[in-house]
């Protein structure tokens, strides 16, 4: 196996409940050098969109999952080789490999470069930064026939000829730059008759963690055509690649060697279409257009449906005279901006007041877990954030909001909202919320019935501040009509746990705080 000195990059676990991720973009291509922790790709899961940093320094030698592909967590999606390594060849098949036991793949003792176990997400590992190039060479030499050319680029024409003749390019002596196999080399190899005795080793070596992940497709540049039936279809990168002549090579996408566990997902499709859980829709009729669902959209869809199926949603609304908040904000905004660089929004005031109010209403900050009611001594406040492209929603969580004053909340909200839009959130930052605030009022709406973020008990909706004729009492106790900035707030709650009266009292108390609190209270 040529991965002796290669570091595997696997689809990271982006939260406990996340089982798969979609590759949205490769930031480095095969052959490019990369530093440790430098962003390698962008992924999208149903929890979060994020960049995945490289677990090692070196060269991207193989990309095993294409953009748009959805793969299970733990699937190897790329290989990073030491500096000087080149795009990898398929493993030489004609040499019996020492022990293809998947359990003990690392064989770290062979090389100075420490090979971390594949089961660990690579983000957590740190192989020595500067792996010397020799180990790759040494590893290549471990397979007798691959000596000297196991680490160079296979040109398109060589890949094609290799494929047509069922030759592993790694088994051809190379005379090009850095030992590269040139067209002449492979033609001479064929002429010499060496290619007529192809390797019997049909099945590729089991991947290090066959139980966790289906074996990846072969490396993009060279469609492997050894008589092995256990070869994945040509990768999508080469749609025009002529099929190898032998019929059996147009073969099952699933390698025969390691049978997948019964519950394993199907192997990653070579086509860049994300796997859609439901059956595929029929072709669009005239005038319709299809676009694939992103992992995030599928996640939202699933969550929304599940939430409505779980909680008994009820919404209560209350009107708040925001005069005091407006005044306070007018005063604090320039100050906060000048001294802290933070834009203090109405949302920050409401969040601060809501957190304070939740202390008196633990069930609204609670959860039904099986037959228990969970209450907490803390508030992890989720904020629904619309992504910049309008095509998604994410709920980053401000942890321990009960410890934050207005400035802290404003800072936290600004930070997580920005990182949500930049796709820089960490998995933990979208989990563990206990209460959520959503602000659909940005576009002027004055009422809504948000859906609860499971497994929480309630979600607070904030709406547009609108100037309205408002009945107030003058200093003589007479009713007069004044112009006041009014905001509607809604609390959508799970009626299984929260009764209407409780919700009403919560809203009443929240209103009182917003209408009466002065600067010192925030």
């Amino acid at each position: 196996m040529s991965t002796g000195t290669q570091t595997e990059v696997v689809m990271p676990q982006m939260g406990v409940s996340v089982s798969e991720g979609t590759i949205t973009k490769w930031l480095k291509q095969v052959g490019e050098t990369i530093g440790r922790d430098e962003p390698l790709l962008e992924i999208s899961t149903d929890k979060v969109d994020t960049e995945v940093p490289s677990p090692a320094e070196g060269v991207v030698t193989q990309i095993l999952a294409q953009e748009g592909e959805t793969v299970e967590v733990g699937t190897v999606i790329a290989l990073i080789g030491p500096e000087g390594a080149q795009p990898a060849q398929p493993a030489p098949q004609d040499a019996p490999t020492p022990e293809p036991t998947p359990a003990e793949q690392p064989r770290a003792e062979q090389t100075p470069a420490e090979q971390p176990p594949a089961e660990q997400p690579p983000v957590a590992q740190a192989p020595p930064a500067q792996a010397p190039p020799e180990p790759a060479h040494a590893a290549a030499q471990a397979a007798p026939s691959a000596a000297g050319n196991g680490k160079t680029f296979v040109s398109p024409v060589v890949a094609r000829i290799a494929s047509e003749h069922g030759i592993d390019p790694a088994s051809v002596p190379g005379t090009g730059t850095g030992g590269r196999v040139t067209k002449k080399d492979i033609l001479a190899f064929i002429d010499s008759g060496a290619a007529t005795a192809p390797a019997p080793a049909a099945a590729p070596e089991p991947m290090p963690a066959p139980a966790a992940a289906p074996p990846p497709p072969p490396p993009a540049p060279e469609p492997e055509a050894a008589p092995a039936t256990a070869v994945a279809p040509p990768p999508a990168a080469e749609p025009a690649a002529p099929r190898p002549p032998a019929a059996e090579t147009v073969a099952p996408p699933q390698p025969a060697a390691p049978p997948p566990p019964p519950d394993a997902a199907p192997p990653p499709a070579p086509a860049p279409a994300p796997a859609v859980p439901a059956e595929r829709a029929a072709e669009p009729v005239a005038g319709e257009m299809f676009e694939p669902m992103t992992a995030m959209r599928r996640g939202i869809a699933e969550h929304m449906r599940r939430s409505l199926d779980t909680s008994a949603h009820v919404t209560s609304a209350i009107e708040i005279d925001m005069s005091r908040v407006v005044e306070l904000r007018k005063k604090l905004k320039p100050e906060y901006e000048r001294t802290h660089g933070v834009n203090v929004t109405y949302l920050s005031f409401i969040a601060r007041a809501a957190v304070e109010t939740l202390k008196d209403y633990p069930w609204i900050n609670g959860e039904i877990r099986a037959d228990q009611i969970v209450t907490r001594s803390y508030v992890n406040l989720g904020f629904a954030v619309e992504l910049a492209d309008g095509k998604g929603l994410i709920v980053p969580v401000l942890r321990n909001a009960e410890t934050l004053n207005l400035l802290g909340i404003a800072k936290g909200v600004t930070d997580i909202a920005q990182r949500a839009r930049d796709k820089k959130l960490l998995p933990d930052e979208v989990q563990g919320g206990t209460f959520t605030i959503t602000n659909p009022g940005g576009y002027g709406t004055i009422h809504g019935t948000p859906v609860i973020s499971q497994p929480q008990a309630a979600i607070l909706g904030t709406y547009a501040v609108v100037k309205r004729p408002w009945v107030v009492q003058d200093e003589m106790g007479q009713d007069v009509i004044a112009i006041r900035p009014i905001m509607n707030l809604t609390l959508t709650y799970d009626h299984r746990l929260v009764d209407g009266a409780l919700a009403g009292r919560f809203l009443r108390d929240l209103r009182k705080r917003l209408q009466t609190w002065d600067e010192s209270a925030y």
Partner: protein
Amino acid sequence: MSERTYLQAISDALREEMRRDQRVFVLGEDVGVYGGAFKVTLGFQEEFGPWRVMDTPLSETAIVGGATGAALMGLRPVAEMQFADFISCAWDHLVTVAAKQHFRGGTAVPIVVRLPSGGGFSGGPFHSQNPESSFAHIPGLKVVCPSTPPDAKGLLASAIADPNPVLYFEHKHLYRRIKAEVPDERYTIPFGEARVHREGDDVLVVTWGAMVHTAAEAAEELAKEGVEVEVLDLRTLIPWDKERVLEDVRRCSKVLVLHEDTRTGGFGAEIAATIAEEAFEHLDAPVKRIAAPDTPVPFSPPLEKAFIPQVEGVAAGLRELAEY
């Protein structure tokens, strides 16, 4: 057959076409009494008279505009730009009128514009350019770039016979330097047929114009090292012999695209892109381009030498491909 220079071959072709076809006439600056700046039309006015060998004012606009009008009225004008560089003054007539007339009105504009082009003799920025790629980009124009005396003759005859506007780029540096046996009788060379200037199957050079000779010299260098380079002379850029290029790419698998025009947006880019699109699986090395850098042509001889691709540079590029 007789040995003729590149310039004589052009002159012969023009004279022959004028003798056999009354509709053919030449117009341009100093083409008459003076015989042309490079003497291509020397003696023409004596033979054909001032109405078929017209000296024009110093106005490329008037020359191409007049030629276009004459062509629309049924004549076969051959206009000369004193230097190809000056054709920019005639851009509008050429590109807006002549190139599009057939599409707009269905009427042919059978004009030939002769364009003495190219550098190599310290002509500086106004007298050395190779603007062929600008016109290759204009649908409706044909672009011819002969490199040898026989091609110069046969392609000019074809250009005059062609019903479309044809830009005939004649490389000044080849005028008196390149000699070859040229058939005495009239013949034509069809457009869109590349010519193998030198055979080989290790590396392919796709080029045209004066660079054909540079490539051939470089190929000789490589031959000493045991590398056989094929030099393919496109001869015409519009149309260009894509099939032949792809065929040779499939055979050689390593390609150098070479031109004297500047690099960015040069016609070599079109060729390289086509190879990448249509012969990707036959490539054994990245397609390489050698071209002039993206600056005006320098006046100073050492700088000009650094600007125009030279034999040593081309040989180095070929070596790099051979070793890849």
